[in-house]
């Protein structure tokens, strides 16, 4: 194997093993930051040794053994330091220390089991609410996906030192606030899981909002998020929201190829060529949603959004869309996760299910909503409904207003075109 092929193989092994490695080490040293450093040391050892001696048969076990040795070195070094500080050197103590190191070695040997539990602990610590969402995202990509600082920086369009700083600070915060390396208790679990799922969905949306020509690491975030989501769903298989989020991401990802036109223009869901949807991902999304629905308890926000996405995914054409069901699902979503944006979506669904007048009534109730004051989709939707009701002058004003609110040039053009065409309609009449 050439050196570069070996490096490729080491990257691949790191990708597969690093999270488990860090998780196992974190259980032992009770410090995620230190665990990551030890794992990195093991990686450096691999980079030195493997190109000369070849990739070992069990590369994961090799890395774990190397990391254990680094951990023992670390403990011994700290002990020596402590002793120098305290000036308590004595034969007996030294013997005790050696015995203690053996005990530690024994503990380390015992740590290979229950790796799944360790991984779950690592997920919860990396996404701990004591950290900002941005810090959680960077740390999660680093610790659980094995991404480099450079890759994370390119993905989020920020300079590398910013991400490096963010990760260093996050690790320090975890150490300083003594976040325990454990799975949260039952009464905390729902809130802590929500924090994990929020980070994963944030990573997904960052990737989903990437536009053509940007660094390939950006759209790759969608795949990272899907992978993380699938891992977490397997770690907490009884949590419907974990499957709900996976379902939502799989279905949204299935539309990736259909949602942009040849010139980079966005194509709205109802105008998309459904033959271009990725039907493997649709199938996976529907299967994940079915898993969420089979579990006990009411559907949460992710599962409900997935159920809405599934309504679209199941209809072969836009005309066949089950809008009555979608309106009902938005109604349920508005009850458990009320937000003006959900209300606006509900209004659209109601208008599709029961007519534009019904929809407009709901939209009009939102016009005084401060959170939507600068949200271009509110006047855009209102304009759309007004066109359907034949109130074209009002519609044109709404589209023009919407165009003035969006910062996206393509969207603005689309809205101005609509404003102009509502005028044309009137002339034709």
């Amino acid at each position, binding site marked *: 194997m050439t050196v570069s*092929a070996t490096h*490729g*193989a080491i*990257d*691949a*092994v790191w*990708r*597969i093993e690093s999270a488990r490695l860090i998780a196992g080490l974190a259980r032992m040293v009770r410090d995620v930051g230190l665990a990551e450093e030890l794992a990195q040391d093991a990686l450096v050892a691999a980079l030195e040794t493997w190109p000369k001696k070849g990739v070992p048969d069990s*590369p994961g076990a090799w890395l774990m053994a190397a990391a254990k040795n680094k951990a023992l070195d670390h403990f011994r070094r700290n002990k020596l330091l402590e002793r120098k500080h305290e000036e308590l050197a004595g034969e007996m103590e030294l013997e005790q220390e050696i015995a203690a190191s053996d005990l530690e070695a024994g503990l380390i040997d015992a740590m290979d089991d229950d790796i*799944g539990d360790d991984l779950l602990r690592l997920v919860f610590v990396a996404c701990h609410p004591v950290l900002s969402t941005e810090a959680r995202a960077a740390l999660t990509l680093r610790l659980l996906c094995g991404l480099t600082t450079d890759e994370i920086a390119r993905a989020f369009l920020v300079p590398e030192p910013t991400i490096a700083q963010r990760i260093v600070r996050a690790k320090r915060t975890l150490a300083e606030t003594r976040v325990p390396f454990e799975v949260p208790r039952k009464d905390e679990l729902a809130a802590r899981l929500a924090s994990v799922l929020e980070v994963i969905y944030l990573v997904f949306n960052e990737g989903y909002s990437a536009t053509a020509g940007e660094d390939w690491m950006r759209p*790759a975030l969608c*795949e990272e998020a*899907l*992978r*993380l*989501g*699938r*891992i977490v769903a*397997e*770690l907490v298989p009884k949590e419907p929201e974990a499957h709900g989020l996976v379902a939502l991401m799989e279905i949204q990802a299935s539309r990736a*190829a259909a949602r942009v036109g*040849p010139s980079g223009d966005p194509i709205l869901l109802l105008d998309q*060529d*459904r*033959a*271009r949807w990725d039907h*493997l991902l649709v199938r*996976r999304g529907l299967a994940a949603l079915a898993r969420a629905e089979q579990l006990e308890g009411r559907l949460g926000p992710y599962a409900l959004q997935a159920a809405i996405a599934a309504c679209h995914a199941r209809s072969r*054409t836009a005309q066949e869309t089950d809008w009555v069901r979608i309106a009902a699902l938005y109604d349920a979503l508005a009850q458990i996760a009320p937000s003006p944006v959900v209300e606006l979506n509900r209004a659209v669904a109601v208008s599709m299910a029961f007519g534009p007048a019904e929809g407009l009534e709901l939209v009009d109730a939102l016009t005084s909503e401060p959170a939507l004051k600068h949200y271009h989709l509110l006047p855009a939707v209102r304009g759309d409904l007004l066109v359907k009701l034949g109130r074209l002058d009002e519609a044109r004003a709404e589209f023009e207003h919407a165009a003035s609110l969006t910062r996206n040039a393509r969207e603005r053009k689309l809205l101005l075109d609509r404003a102009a065409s509502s005028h044309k309609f009137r002339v034709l009449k």
Partner: protein
Amino acid sequence: MRFMMLMIPKGYEKAAPGAMPDAKAIAAMMKYNESLQKAGVLLSLEGLHPPSMGARVSFPGGKPKVTDGPFAEAKEVLGGYWMIQVKSRAEAIEWAKRCPASENETIEVRQVQEMSDFPPEILPPKLGAREQELRDELQKKR
């Protein structure tokens, strides 16, 4: 990126209809499949019945010709496949290396072509548009 790991078991080309791997091999393979799933990389997988239960359709002179299995000339046949989503070719190979395969089995690792691999000019602009037209046409005739 997506890869197929294609399982090629030597001897499967001659296997009798209904032939199945032994229980121990199946258990090991299920454990492997589970590890792929838990790592979040598995998209789908299928196992295939032996060629003796299948058929080949060839096109001599552009006309379809059906040959029932087994196929005397086949040296290698597929036993099944995994589709995985990974970051690199090296990662796909690393996963293939972890398969608890036997000595007579080979895994071929092949990248799946994606929409974005094709230049836009060879993809019809709207694959589903014609289907929609046909459907609308049917609707009118009803």
